[in-house]
């Protein structure tokens, strides 16, 4: 059944979202846009947990959650969408349960899949916006390329130790991930949360900021971080916003003469994959 777009808020919605209707930048029209929007969150881990919860709370009409892992006790230090009773449960299912409890107004789809070249194009086409809350380089290139092919804005966050980063790709002619990073980093230089650790609230902050960027894009306030990168250093509590290059004409996916026009083998491209458990245990 297709999701019916609404042109009016119900009385229940008006009462439920009254605090947002009062915000001049949102109002009734903004709340309707949130209600009619669909957002795919890839990764129900440290970033995805707050992003999903605040998007559902804000009144986003449809949320998709992709994860293929199960909840482990060591996740709970940062993944507040899960709890102790969910240890051993699929993360996508656990996240969906939390959304169902938070809001009966949100239609939530759980994808218990490892997103890869074989399925990403099909999944992404069903959603308006994609939140990159993943934990590995291969999936980040995969999401970037498919968001270019399907023309979806990509709200991309990352966190490690006491650091966080956030940007928006492929919005209104802005650059994509490959424009900035045409080549993947050597696998031995990539540290994940499993190896490097992370202070739990750091992805919490970045995930919240991802949700905020989505709300701003959906409601027409506009993204602040297209062609910009927010760099957060929790040690010094410093937030720095830097200006990034625009679209790169030579970009292999978003340039005028793309050399990549469909998903490739990202594990080979990056020299490491999302299921590279030697390096990537319980990272999301």
């Amino acid at each position: 059944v297709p999701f019916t777009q609404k042109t009016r808020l119900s009385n229940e919605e008006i009462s439920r979202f009254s605090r947002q209707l009062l915000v001049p930048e949102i109002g009734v029209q903004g709340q309707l846009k949130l209600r009619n929007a669909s957002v795919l969150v890839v990764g129900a881990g440290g970033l995805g947990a707050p992003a999903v919860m605040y998007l559902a709370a804000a009144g986003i009409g449809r949320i998709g959650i992709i994860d293929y892992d199960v909840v482990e006790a060591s996740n709970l230090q940062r993944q507040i969408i899960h709890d102790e009773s969910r240890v051993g449960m699929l993360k996508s299912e656990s996240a969906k349960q939390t959304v169902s409890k938070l809001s009966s107004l949100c239609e939530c789809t759980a994808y218990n899949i490892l997103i890869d070249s074989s399925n990403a194009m099909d999944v992404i086409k069903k959603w308006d916006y994609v939140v990159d809350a993943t934990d590995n380089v291969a999936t980040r290139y995969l999401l970037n390329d498919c968001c270019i092919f399907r023309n979806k804005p990509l709200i991309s966050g990352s966190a490690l130790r006491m650091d966080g980063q956030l940007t928006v790709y492929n919005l209104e002619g802005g650059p994509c991930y490959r424009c900035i990073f045409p080549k993947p980093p050597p696998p031995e230089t990539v540290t994940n949360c499993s190896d490097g650790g992370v202070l739990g609230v750091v992805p919490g902050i970045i995930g919240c900021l991802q949700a905020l960027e989505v709300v701003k894009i959906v409601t027409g306030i506009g993204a602040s971080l297209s062609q910009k990168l927010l760099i957060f250093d929790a040690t010094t509590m410093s937030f720095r916003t830097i200006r990034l290059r625009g679209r790169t004409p030579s970009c292999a996916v978003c340039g005028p003469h793309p050399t990549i026009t469909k998903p490739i083998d990202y594990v080979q491209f990056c020299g490491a994959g999302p299921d590279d458990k030697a390096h990537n245990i319980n990272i999301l």
Partner: protein
Amino acid sequence: MPLSITLEFSGGMELLFNNEKRKQVTLPDSFAPGTATLKDLLPWVRDNLLTERAELFMQDDTVRPGILVLINETDWELEGELEYKIQDGDVIVFISTLHGG
């Protein structure tokens, strides 16, 4: 007068530089104001400040993939990349991009 600049290391890059996040340096006289570029600076940083394996910082004559360079809060690609001419007081930031979540 020699060039004085500030180097900053973020996103884990500091782990390659003795865990220092910020360092003010005065460049040697071989860095002439008006001609010295980032192409000259990178090997100097590698040879004088780097405390870990060189290949984690540079590949060929530039930074390795996954490192973003900022010149005064701007992506170096907008400033000429390796050809950018260093100016006194510049703040050059090396950021390792993060992939965790």
